[in-house]
């Protein structure tokens, strides 16, 4: 098997340049998709027969929640790669993820609350999805906290990678346990959101938003990754080339 691609992804200057080249290819489609989805979701899509115009919060809530989970998955995967193959670039990716993930997790929590108040008459429901999201936020915050508490970069990389992996094992268990707990304490029908089918003019903006947020995350991650690589490799010769 040819492993040169693997070594290329382990080389900071190569990744730095590749990230710079790729950023606009993610950023522009992301911006266009989000703008189109905004128009589609706020103007073209008809009001929901039960929730009226309130359902339109889904167009910002669902993508935020989706991205927050995906950021954690990317963070944990790259942390594991960094830990196993001692790949510095992978650690830099994981380090770049945490802030993005925390911000989207917070956004999904607050938009969820803003949706909950008119729909169920309360800001907060002890719903499995909300609780799991809250735990996810704590994991991101803990990850950032652990990183910043360790001075040596190599140690911080590897200790936080262990934490990210422990979190991945735990998240499904936490989610399941809260669902089980919720089924005992609350009638499950309260939170029934999913419907058998969404009309296409409601669904299309949602799918565009999901894709747009995903590409947006990719673009932001690439920019942060470049900053992270420059900071980590500031003594290396290639840094002198790229900034001069």
């Amino acid at each position: 098997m040819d492993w040169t691609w693997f070594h290329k992804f382990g080389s900071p200057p190569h990744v730095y340049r590749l990230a710079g080249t790729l950023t606009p290819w993610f950023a522009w489609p992301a911006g266009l998709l989000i703008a189109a989805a905004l128009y589609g979701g706020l103007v073209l899509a008809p009001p929901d027969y039960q929730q009226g115009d309130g359902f339109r919060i889904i167009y910002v809530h669902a993508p935020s929640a989706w991205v927050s989970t995906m950021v954690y998955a990317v963070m944990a995967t790259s942390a594991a790669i960094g830990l196993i193959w001692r790949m510095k670039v992978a650690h830099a990716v994981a380090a770049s993820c945490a802030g993005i993930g925390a911000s989207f997790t917070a956004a999904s929590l607050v938009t969820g609350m803003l949706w909950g108040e008119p729909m169920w008459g309360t800001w907060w429901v002890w719903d499995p999805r909300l609780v799991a999201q809250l735990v996810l936020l704590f994991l991101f915050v803990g990850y950032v906290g652990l990183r910043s508490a360790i001075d040596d970069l190599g140690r911080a990389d590897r200790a936080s990678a262990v934490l990210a992996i422990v979190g991945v094992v735990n998240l499904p268990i936490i989610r399941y346990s809260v669902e089980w707990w919720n089924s005992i304490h609350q009638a499950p029908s309260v939170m029934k959101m999913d419907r058998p089918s969404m009309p296409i003019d409601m669904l299309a903006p949602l799918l565009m938003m999901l894709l747009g947020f995903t590409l947006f995350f990719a673009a932001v991650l690439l920019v942060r990754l470049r900053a992270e690589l420059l900071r980590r490799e500031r003594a290396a010769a290639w840094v002198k080339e790229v900034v001069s």
Partner: protein
Amino acid sequence: MSDFFRMGGYAVYLWPAYALTFAVLAWNVLSARRALREAKAEARRRMGLRPEPRS
């Protein structure tokens, strides 16, 4: 037009949700770009302080 902004009475919930989400998007863009700018400036500063010996 004002109907659009009223959002069938859900405006107080809907617009803050959109505003917050787009604030998060904007923060992500700005903070990422600032991080890159600062990292570049820092690298240049270090370069100025410790010039590469010419061979």
